């Protein structure tokens, strides 16, 4: 394998793969980040005013600064960054030159966006037959909605993630932290890696088409599709309880937060009842049908067990339930997750110095490869940080040419 661009780092499984990413916000950049973490060399191409994620935050002290947005810094670590105005012919030509050297080109600006490069995928592959073009868009490249405008909340809605989330008498909720877009971005990274394996056999690249709404509709409907087809249940909001499963399968308040309990096996439920002590209701036939307790009278059923939780702290409940092998855990807030001894002991969190900010914490490896490790090797690029390195070093522009592109407002 070729040497790693970051000195002293053991090569990752995608070492030597060159990626050009043209995408903003979450889905395209998360696709690029996922490949970069596995060792790919990713050049992020931003419009002159930068990736919109630079304006999203969170910001240190809530002071907006395009170089300090937490969302941007998280999504774009491990990449090189260049600026380019691809709406003009000159900028488009430069982008084509970059793509001509790449193994994977990620294009996630939808056709409706003013910054869409409008490149002809087939022509790109003609010029570079091994190229994989990964197209991320809300609805895909075909079909009646293909040009619809869409933000993450609309992807969550059309992907089927929102309708069931929330209380029945209130509005449906989009997934928090734009998780539908992460799902789409990760799926696109996986599909690209599959196309790389296919190329290992054929030598040929191809278009990899990912529709963000389809990813959710496909990967998260395994229960809902048959429930609809065979029982005619089109979906409804179920609040703090899971619609499918046996009682108790819900989130309830503890004295200092919330807990989540799910006891599908009868023995687990019986051990839980023993924990509660002698409860006269447990002999009542109405409270022996665990499916009906969830589907038909959940509030009434939850009221039977809620007091036991409300009197205890999350930590005490967790300890008691662990000792008795009852699946019930605290609903951890993000600070509790960051400070969780289990994750600390496993060396999960990655702490890195960020110039101008101080120490930042990044989530760690979602997979652990002993021979070709996941890595967090460099911070996200400042706007245009690697223009010289990429345009002169890789495309062979002279310093004078780069100055001219700069003066012409192309980079």
């Amino acid at each position, binding site marked *: 394998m070729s040497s790693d661009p970051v000195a002293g780092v053991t090569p990752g*499984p995608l070492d030597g793969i060159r990626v050009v990413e043209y995408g903003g916000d979450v889905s395209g950049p*998360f696709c690029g980040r*996922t490949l970069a973490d596995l060792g790919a060399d990713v050049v992020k191409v931003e419009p002159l005013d930068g990736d919109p994620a630079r304006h999203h*935050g969170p910001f240190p002290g809530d002071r907006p600064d395009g170089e300090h947005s*937490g969302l941007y810094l998280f999504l774009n670590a491990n990449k090189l960054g260049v600026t380019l105005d691809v709406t003009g012919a000159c900028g488009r030509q430069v982008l084509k030159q970059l793509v001509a050297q790449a193994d994977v080109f990620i294009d996630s600006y939808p056709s409706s966006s003013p910054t869409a490069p409008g490149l002809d995928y087939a022509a790109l592959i003609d010029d570079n037959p091994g190229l994989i073009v990964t197209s991320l868009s809300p609805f895909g490249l*075909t079909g009646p909605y293909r040009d*619809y405008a869409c*933000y993450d909340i*609309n992807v*969550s*809605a059309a992907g*089927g*993630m*929102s*309708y069931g*989330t929330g*209380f029945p008498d209130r*509005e*449906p*909720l989009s997934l928090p*932290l734009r*998780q539908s877009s*992460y*799902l789409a971005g*990760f799926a696109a990274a*996986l*599909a690209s890696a*599959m196309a*790389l394996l*296919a190329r290992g056999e054929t030598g040929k690249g*191809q278009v*990899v*088409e990912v*529709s963000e709404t*389809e990813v959710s*509709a*496909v*990967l998260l*409907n*395994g229960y*809902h599709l048959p429930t609809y*087809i*065979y029982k005619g249940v*089109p979906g409804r909001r*179920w609040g703090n309880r899971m619609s499918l499963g046996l009682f108790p399968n819900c*989130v309830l308040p503890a004295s200092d937060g919330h807990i*989540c309990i799910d006891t599908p096996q009868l023995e*687990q439920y019986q051990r839980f009842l023993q924990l509660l002590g002698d409860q006269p209701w447990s002999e009542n036939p109405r409270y022996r049908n665990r499916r009906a307790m969830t589907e038909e009278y959940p509030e009434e059923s939850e009221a039977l067990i809620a007091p036991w939780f409300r009197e205890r702290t999350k930590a005490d409940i967790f300890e008691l339930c662990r000792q008795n092998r009852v699946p019930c855990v605290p609903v*951890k807030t*993000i*600070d509790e997750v*960051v400070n*969780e001894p*289990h994750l600390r002991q496993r060396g999960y969190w990655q702490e890195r110095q960020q110039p101008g900010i101080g*120490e930042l914490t*990044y*989530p760690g490896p*979602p*997979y652990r490869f002993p*021979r070709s490790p996941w890595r967090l090797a460099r911070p996200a690029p400042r706007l245009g940080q690697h223009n010289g390195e990429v345009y002169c070093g890789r495309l062979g522009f002279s310093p004078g040419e780069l100055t001219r592109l700069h003066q012409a407002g192309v980079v």
Partner: protein
Amino acid sequence: MQALGRFRVLDFGTAWAAPMASQLLADMGAEVVKVESRVRLDGLRLGRPIVGDDVAGGDRGRWPELQPVFHGLNRNKLGITVNLKHADGVELIKRLAGQTDVVIHNYSPGVLERLGLDYDALRAVRPDIIVVGMPAAGETGPLSNVIAYAPIILALSGLMSMVGYEDGTLVGELQSAWSDAVAGLHAAMAAVSALRHRDATGQGQHVEVAQWEATTSWLGEAVMDWAMNARAQGTTGNVDPGMAPHNCYPCRGGEAKEGWVSIAVGSDEEWRRFCRAVESGGGRGRNRWTRDPRYADGFRRWRRRAELDDHIRRWTRRFEPMEVTQLLQRFGVAAMPVMTIEDQFLDPHFRQREVWPEVEHPMVGIEWLYGLAWRLHETPGSVRRHAPLLGEHNRQVLGELLGVSESDLQRFERAEAVY
């Protein structure tokens, strides 16, 4: 040509996450052999099925073949029944491992060691084998033995604490196996990446995918807020820090259900187009708020988002979700109905893109499954085979592939090593 057609995968997965990982590989052409046993069936084969009314025999009768959730997660796979508690069963699996590229499992820490099928044992028969283990909380650490189903992992991950309304009301549950899908994608990525590493170096390896850590790894935005501001992000409902309007709005419902539409306006230009769309939609004069200068810029719209949402609700209630969507989209404004599975199943866009393929199952007949989450234009993959019946491919895999004779197979069956 299939993208993954040159690879064989042994799937020891049960329930959701690990079977989904190997299903994603099977969809793209990998030959996935699901290893099961009647000694302990995959939990998704058990219980009264939602299809049919044949109760004869229960879990020991036809029920294990009538579970449509199982059929989705295990389509495109071959199925064998091998008893891993029997020495001859373990021996058969070791022989099969000699012809296997990837093993995927979600056993608790230590189980494969006890069976004599851990990475070192498998590597002895196949030096470049790739093993992807998917323990819930990892193989090490004080909580490595936690009993974890999808909601439990969601709770531990931190994501559940953010599911709820802007007023702080926690909802918590997502009505889907979110952490299973996330972990399944990561395990498939681990397998594909490790295969690429093996293509380049000849080396196999044992990859650990802790489902909890995979789910937490997508929460970097909230982790950054904690690192930067010591602020633990709570429930934010449908609020976006930079967009208003940005919400789900009630519509005129159909016969039996309510309708909702999601709308997001990301810039002042989009706001002007939104207002033009509302004004063009009839009821002129009733929507004076579209001309209110207090809503003309994004910052003030965001500050007044609650009253703005009231105006918009009064407008959206007059239409069905798809009517609002088509009107706003004509003006380039982002809007989509909040879709139920029924909406998605009947939707012309998803229909045209064949998101719900059909497959014929020998005991259920035609069934609709979810399709593929991506399209590789030259090597597209497909839903081409129904989920295996119990032991359906014992003779194909153990007989033809491994070369076990029919008399030996019958002997193994009598001894319940193949069972």
